[in-house]
């Protein structure tokens, strides 16, 4: 079993949901990413998700688009992001997943990308624009290196496709909570709960289920974990802190840690 799956499993045994925390690597500058990662983990993030910035992030809302622009302007490259994972792993024993669009991976070459991922200790990879149909070579390269391939499912995914995606995914299944792009939301749509209930019978006993896109507040985390999901993925809420406090790193780290702590508390309390 992969490290990512093990974390989900042991949290479940304790009656907790997992908190997956995302930031765009290299935002606002590459040297801060390991420090930000440390704050996330200290606050209670169970699995780190690091984004490789891409020039044309079509699945992302304004928050992560802006973070990508800052990271690219700071000179962040895919290779640097993979190497950062090594640095993070030296500090903390935390599973790390990389989130990217396909072109940076394609450009580097699958074998080189996964070779570097493996040597840096990357546990899983999520590619926002690579559906299972196009992923045969990618999956093979990842499996050779023992890296999880985390696929996404969405509200528009049919029952037949969902089966196929669940068969292809490893580590966990990334469920997109609603029709739309990434970004903070004031309230969670009720349809998200129904979606989780539709997907759970397919994932149960096979792969952990984590829900992302628009999950930004403790009550959202509580709701998705309460509905039976194994984890909640929070991205834009952290990225917004990075953006807001980028001239005051001390405050940034403080707020990230506090926010992660509150979110994690909600992931624990779902049975209460």
């Amino acid at each position, binding site marked *: 079993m992969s490290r990512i799956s093990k974390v989900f499993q042991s949290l479940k045994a304790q009656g907790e949901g997992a908190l997956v925390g995302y930031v765009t690597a290299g935002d606002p500058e590459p040297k801060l990413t390991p420090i930000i990662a440390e704050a996330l983990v200290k606050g209670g993030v169970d699995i780190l998700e690091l984004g490789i910035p*891409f*020039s*044309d*992030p*079509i*699945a992302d*809302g*304004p928050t992560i*688009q802006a973070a990508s*622009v800052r990271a*690219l302007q700071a000179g962040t*490259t*895919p*290779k640097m992001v993979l190497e950062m994972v090594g640095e993070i792993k030296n500090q903390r024993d935390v599973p790390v997943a990389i989130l990217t669009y*396909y*072109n*940076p*991976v*394609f*450009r*580097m070459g699958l074998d080189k990308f996964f070779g570097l991922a493996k040597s840096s200790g990357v546990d899983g990879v999520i590619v*926002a*624009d*690579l*559906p299972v*149909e*196009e992923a045969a070579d990618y999956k093979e390269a990842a499996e050779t290196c023992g890296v999880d391939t985390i*696929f*996404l*499912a*969405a*509200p*528009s*995914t*049919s029952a037949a*496709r969902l089966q196929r*995606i669940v068969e292809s995914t490893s580590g966990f299944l990334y469920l*997109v909570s609603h*029709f*739309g*792009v990434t970004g903070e939301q004031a309230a969670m749509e009720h349809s998200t709960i129904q979606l989780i209930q539709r997907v759970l019978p397919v994932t149960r006993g096979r792969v952990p289920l984590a829900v992302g896109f628009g999950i930004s507040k403790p009550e959202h985390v509580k709701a998705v974990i309460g509905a039976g999901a194994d984890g909640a993925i929070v991205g834009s809420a952290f990225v917004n802190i990075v953006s807001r406090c980028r001239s005051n790193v001390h405050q940034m780290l403080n707020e990230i840690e506090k926010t992660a702590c509150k979110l994690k508390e909600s992931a624990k309390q779902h049975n209460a």
Partner: protein
Amino acid sequence: MKSDKMRKLSSYPVEGKFGKYGGRFVPEILMSAIKELEEAYVEAREDPSFKKQLKYYLSEYAGRPTPLYYAENFTRKLGGAKIYLKREDLAHGGAHKINNTLGQALLAKRMGKTRVIAETGAGQHGVATAMACAALGLKAEVYMGAEDMKRQRLNVFRMRLLNAEVHPVESGSKTLKDSINEAMRDWVTNLKSTYYLIGSVVGPHPYPMMVRDFQSVIGCELREQFLQKEQRLPDALVACVGGGSNAIGTFYPFEDCPEVQLYGVEAAGQGIESGKHSASLGAGAEGVFHGMLTYVLQDNEGQILNTHSVSAGLDYPGVGPEHSFLKTLQRAEYATATDEEAVNAFCTLSREEGIVPALESAHALAFAMKLAPKMRRDQAIVVTLSGRGDKDVEVVADFLGVKI
């Protein structure tokens, strides 16, 4: 199954791919929508009533067929092969874009979609979308880069006159590629009600196939017209390539006629070596962008580059996957023309024939001006004049340093 060597080029795409190019590299959330679209299109394509409807609008509304004009003065000036112009500039709206927007808008209506979104660079596709939607009673919303909106104020007003809503795009480089990104973001958010009307042979399958089919009316007409005039096929076809829809529309009915040379002309901008150009096939590398595997202008890390061309319609860092396929097979040859060469061709055709070509089409003319003198007088070239140049008069005056 036929081996790939036996397969006719016109039978592609196979399972959404032209050889290895094309495909569906999109977020999972869009997969159901592009499959629904493919099913709806394949069904419509076979339906005589859909064909009849499209034919009606193409002739009665868009003014097809467009003429194939023998440019005698231009030919004489160049002193080589005869040059014919396929006059897409005479189609409604002043460009070939209407062929595609009518087809897709009819499809959107058939699918029961009430809202149509589109991206636009220079505004030509936005205008053509607004026209087709107005004619068919659909609501059109167009994404346009804030930078492009400044450069093409007139087209913004034109779209609004045609009852379309224009949304400025402030992300990224604020040009065409960013308006496609923004349209895709809209689409994932409003999947059920909304039809995304892409303006070129780009994007995930089925768009490159579908847009090609709608644009191939150009090549089908010119084939018949040329046969009638010359009782044979032309020796060469020349068309400009941004995303590549007028070129594929021109080439497609001739892909399996090896005696016809196919030339696509990309924008070399200020010169390939300057880095300020839009020659994806000429200077790009294979990549995955906007849902397709194709040639892309990108840096060593796989980040998409900004492009440059004096003609906004060619200003795109990717290219239709079928062009990548034809290039790799060496079935078509891809050349470039610089801003300066295009402006020169723009002025030459205006002077010699009284036809002001779009700056995009002027790239094709610039290449034809080099090609014709190398060919015999009994040979013939057809250049697709993809649009008229009224929209470019200001840009050309500016380029020439003339105050108007």
